[in-house]
């Protein structure tokens, strides 16, 4: 376990560093119509491409699609071994999405996540660990439909936030 960290110490242990480029266990989700409806209702996006079958079928898409950030509801699998998160609190720093083609209702989307970089900064909240992860989304035809690159910041000690490690 990590102990308290002084400014000339690093939280990025050899063990933590060994997670760079390690792929998470692949998980496959079916893109289910009602999950898309629930998500679009939650974000408040009235676009009929996501929920109106007749409209979507007569559009250039030819059928219902998922909204661009629907990927947030598809959680990646675990890493082959437990990720040794040194901190208790989590902040989402941002996302970069690249879209090759739309995700359609009925698609089978396979997700793999890997950490591409780890670095730390020292600020008013003490040491903060920045984790850059790339998540790939591949459809049932084997085509990479999109990627999401995320920046996750963790910091602080104490009781771990519920949800730390999910995103």
């Amino acid at each position, binding site marked *: 376990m990590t102990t308290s960290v002084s400014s000339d110490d690093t939280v990025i242990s050899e063990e933590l560093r060994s997670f760079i480029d390690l792929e998470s266990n692949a998980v496959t989700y079916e893109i289910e119509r009602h*999950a898309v409806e*629930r*998500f679009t*209702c*939650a*974000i*408040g*996006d009235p*676009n009929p*491409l996501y929920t109106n079958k007749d409209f979507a079928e007569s*559009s*250039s*898409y030819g059928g219902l699609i998922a*909204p*661009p*950030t629907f990927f*947030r*509801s598809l*959680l990646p699998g675990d890493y082959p071994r437990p990720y040794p998160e040194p901190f208790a*609190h*989590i*902040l*989402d*720093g*941002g*996302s*970069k*999405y*690249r*879209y090759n083609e739309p995700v359609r209702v009925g698609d089978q989307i396979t997700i793999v996540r890997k950490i591409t970089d780890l670095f730390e900064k020292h600020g008013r909240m003490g040491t903060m660990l920045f984790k850059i992860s790339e998540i790939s989304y591949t459809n049932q035809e084997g085509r990479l439909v999109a990627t999401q690159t995320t*920046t996750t910041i963790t910091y602080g000690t104490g009781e771990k*936030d*519920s*949800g*730390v490690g*999910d*995103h």
Partner: protein
Amino acid sequence: MFEDVNVGDELPELVKHPDNRQLVMYAGASQDFVAIHYDLNVAKEAGHPNVIIHGALKSAWLGELVTGWIGPEGRLLELDVSYRAIDFPGDTATCVGKVIDARIEDGVGLVEIEIGLRNPEGAISTPGRALVSLPTHSAT
């Protein structure tokens, strides 16, 4: 159409009025159960006056801003969002966008848009950018 777009054009603003109910709905729909988004005690312990809006919900609104503007014939190719500052339910969140580049590459009309979420103080808490393609007259 691509030909109708000019650098400097502003997208119609998209105004959101998030409340706690929407944050709970988003937590359930996205499976993001980090407690700072729904448990006031946890948010206060972290030094915030209220629960905070999920960054990813703000990116969903910015996605809506862009996809609503391009319509069903356009395609969203890239969406980048940075959560620079925190936003709270109860505050009005205004999504804004401005065209910063328009070019044709390999016969495809590409438009780059600077986007952001503006808080009630007028600051951009959540800047970003998007790249979209739009149909061209020559392709029709």
